[in-house]
């Protein structure tokens, strides 16, 4: 498909369980973002990758949250020892970014459908 895909779409976890959420960005998109959207709120930034490099993880709420993008395409967000406050929709977005002198820079982010995580 042409868009960003995420799996699973829904995940129910017992408190204390580890979960892994997957994001497949649009092919060729260099930048990849993870956001967390709590009920009734706007998305909040978690972390950002440029290719395989994690350049910003300032939004990760605790050291239980870990993200990786080892080959610069698919990304996984892992949450260890889940807590009830982790219940939210986790959104992935990708954008085409071309750096370097004279390059055109794009910042339009394309979002996936999200993974709704419910921690019981």
């Amino acid at each position: 498909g042409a868009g960003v895909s995420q799996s699973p779409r829904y995940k129910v976890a017992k408190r204390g369980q580890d979960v892994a959420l997957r994001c497949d960005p649009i092919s060729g998109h260099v930048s990849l973002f993870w956001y967390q959207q709590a009920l009734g709120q706007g998305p909040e930034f978690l972390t950002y990758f440029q290719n395989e490099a994690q350049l910003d993880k300032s939004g990760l709420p605790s050291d239980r949250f870990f993200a990786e993008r080892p080959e610069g395409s698919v990304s996984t967000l892992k949450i260890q020892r889940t807590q009830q406050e982790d219940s939210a929709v986790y959104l992935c977005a990708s954008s085409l970014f071309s750096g370097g002198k004279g390059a055109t820079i794009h910042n339009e982010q394309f979002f996936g459908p999200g993974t709704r995580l419910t921690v019981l």
Partner: protein
Amino acid sequence: AQSVSQHNHHVILSEAASLELGCNYSYGGTVNLFWYVQYPGQHLQLLLKYFSGDPLVKGIKGFEAEFIKSKFSFNLRKPSVQWSDTAEYFCAASGAIYRATASKLTFGTGTRLQVTL
């Protein structure tokens, strides 16, 4: 700190009414501004964006927004709403893109628009 405020949390309009949703931002330096829409059961989609140039930006489905730098505002407008515009609308901002890195989005809390027949 960077922030985006949306003052209207829930708006109910009749079809054909005019729409204006408020958005104010607080950002240091150059800012890029966006409006995203989330239809029921669907993912976030970009409605329109402002990077530079003409402060009146036209987007898809007849939406437009005006960047007023002096008011730190980027309000969304549509002259005549349709039932199919029922959705949640998010204003977002990011810093200007520098060579080293792309820029994360800061979102407002969203405005739920309900259009009645």
